[in-house]
């Protein structure tokens, strides 16, 4: 396993990379050379406080580009979710500096595609798999998850030869809670009519946040952005037209389809007022009880509350979405399912009922990271907005 003294090597293909990619590789290499610790994660269930408390930077490694999918398909079957293929493809083709320089990649047993992909990823990079239960209503599921979080803590302690103390965990929880509050404050600016930001800006900001090395610096920048956008909105400077239809986007993580879905909505008379994926409000509103006597257990409990379709049952997701629909006064809900994501795709039938019961129009789209369906997607989204 890596420690700060092992040589840090660039990928074999480094010379073929374009300037921008080379720069980011060099940046991450410098970070590592200066003794920086890097841990990659792949899912919202990863208890980031534990990584923070190990003195490591946690970076999201979810693949969002189709660039490396052909490479991934040399190993993986084609009919898998693009997020799974892209994540593996970046590791396989050594094109992502964060994946390449991670000391450890943490994954969870979520959907079948990810779970089995991690076995292959494990051949390329050191991985640690947390066994996520399939539900949270049974006591042994909660206890089992807590034990998994303990095991992650111990794995990091072994990896870096350190002790993770309750104090550092608590401090990490305070900072992450502050980040969650700053994120929520930014989301809430979209309640205004018209909203303070374009949805594309909001989605891109959330996405960029997953690549931050320094949580504190990121919190501060997010707080500043929130202040700035609030002030602009109060001065009447919304970038969004008054008549724009207010859309809530729910479903799979949208980091890879911001241009395809987010921008298309906004080009056709809509605006994304709520991003209801696992990086959105339904996840960020869960805080860690930072004063709990057993802080590690409090951290484990907070993460298990996340309402993802990999859980069964997952009723609270519908409840949360209905609350957001009201809070953000949405005109329509678009569910974005990534191709071959069975859990969200199946759950969509129930989401459709939950949304329509509240009297709000609903449309599901299935898409991937390619540009092949751009025209069809544009027609669907434009037609949906025309009906609102």
């Amino acid at each position, binding site marked *: 396993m890596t420690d700060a003294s092992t040589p840090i090597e660039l990928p074999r293909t480094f010379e073929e990379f374009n300037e921008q990619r080379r720069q980011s590789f060099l940046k991450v290499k410098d970070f590592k050379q200066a003794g920086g610790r890097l841990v990659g994660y792949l899912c919202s269930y990863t208890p980031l406080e534990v990584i923070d408390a190990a003195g490591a930077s946690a970076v999201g490694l979810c693949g969002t580009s189709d660039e490396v999918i052909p490479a991934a398909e040399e190993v993986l079957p084609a009919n898998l979710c693009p997020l799974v293929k892209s994540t593996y493809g970046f590791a396989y083709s050594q094109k992502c500096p964060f994946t390449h320089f991670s000391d450890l990649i943490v994954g969870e047993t979520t959907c079948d595609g990810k779970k089995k992909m991690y076995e292959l990823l494990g051949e390329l990079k050191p991985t640690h798999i947390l066994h996520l239960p399939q539900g949270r209503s049974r006591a042994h599921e909660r206890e089992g998850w807590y034990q998994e979080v303990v095991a992650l803590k111990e794995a990091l302690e072994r990896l870096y030869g350190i002790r993770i103390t309750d104090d550092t965990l608590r401090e990490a929880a305070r900072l992450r809670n502050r980040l969650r509050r700053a994120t929520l404050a930014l989301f809430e600016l979209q309640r205004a009519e018209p909203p303070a930001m374009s949805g594309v800006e909001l989605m891109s900001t959330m996405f960029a946040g997953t690549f931050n090395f320094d949580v504190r610096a990121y919190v501060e920048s997010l707080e500043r952005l929130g202040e700035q956008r609030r002030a602009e909105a109060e001065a009447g400077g919304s970038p969004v037209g008054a008549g724009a239809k207010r859309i809530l986007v729910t479903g799979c993580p949208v980091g890879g389809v911001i241009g395809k879905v987010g921008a298309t909505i906004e080009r056709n008379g809509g605006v994304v007022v709520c991003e209801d994926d696992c990086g959105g409000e339904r996840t960020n509103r869960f805080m860690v009880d930072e004063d709990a006597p057993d802080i590690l257990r409090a951290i484990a409990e907070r993460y298990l509350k996340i309402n993802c379709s990999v859980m069964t049952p997952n009723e609270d997701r519908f409840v949360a979405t209905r609350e957001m629909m009201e809070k953000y006064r949405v005109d329509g809900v678009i569910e974005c399912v990534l191709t071959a994501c069975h859990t969200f795709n199946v759950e969509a039938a129930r989401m459709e009922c939950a949304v329509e019961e509240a009297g709000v129009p609903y*449309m599901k789209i299935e898409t991937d990271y390619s540009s092949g369906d751009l025209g069809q997607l544009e027609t669907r989204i*434009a037609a*949906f907005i025309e009906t609102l």
Partner: protein
Amino acid sequence: MASDEKSPRLGIGLDIGSTATKLVVLGADGAVSHTDLMPTGFSSVDAAARALASLEAAGFAPGGGARVVATGYGRVAVPYADKVVTEITCHGRGAAHLFGPEGTVIDVGGQDTKVIRLRGGRVAKFAMNDKCAAGTGRFLEVMADRLSVSQEELSALARTGEPTRISSMCTVFAESEVISLVGRGEPRENIAGGVVESVAGRVATLVASAGGSAPYYLTGGLCDNGYVVERLAALLGAPVTTCSEARYAGAIGAALAALDMG
């Protein structure tokens, strides 16, 4: 375009579909003054230019009181359009105009199939099959070619046959299935029956998944294909109403939207 008081108010609807381009001109009272239908060809820009020539020849040049709304997959390729509206909205509106404000519109197009639920003359919900050719006009076209018959002959054959089950959904696989059925000496009318069953079955499934309910209206290129309409009605368990003008539904909806612009 500034509205010219002297020129009469007209609504021009142009529907550039993947296979055919449809043109409808409505007078201020909503009566049809002119229709035209031409193959789209490989370029929607070119189709838009030919549609303009047709309008000019018939004395309905855009401008003045004549507004143009473009729809269909080539809708963005019409430089003289005053407005662009999606084919879902236009088909819904056109069908409501032809048939009535409540019901389910089934539009079987050249490359895609749409199911539109109408409520109060407006689109309440829609579903589209636009990722594969199964259940579209394209599927019938490919299979008719394979059997060396025209689409009309395919329907006529199908009516007399005992449908052979075509199990492949994908047009490419279904095509090889048909080739091997022909090779095995399966009667052509049975294969033709299977082809029609396959299309009608796919369309009926899409209707069900969109939560469609009677009354059903069929628009698009298959509205003159009596046998397909019959089989579809049988599978849906309710009559499917259609008429020859129904292939212009999208253009009619666009022309109505153009009239709204005043």
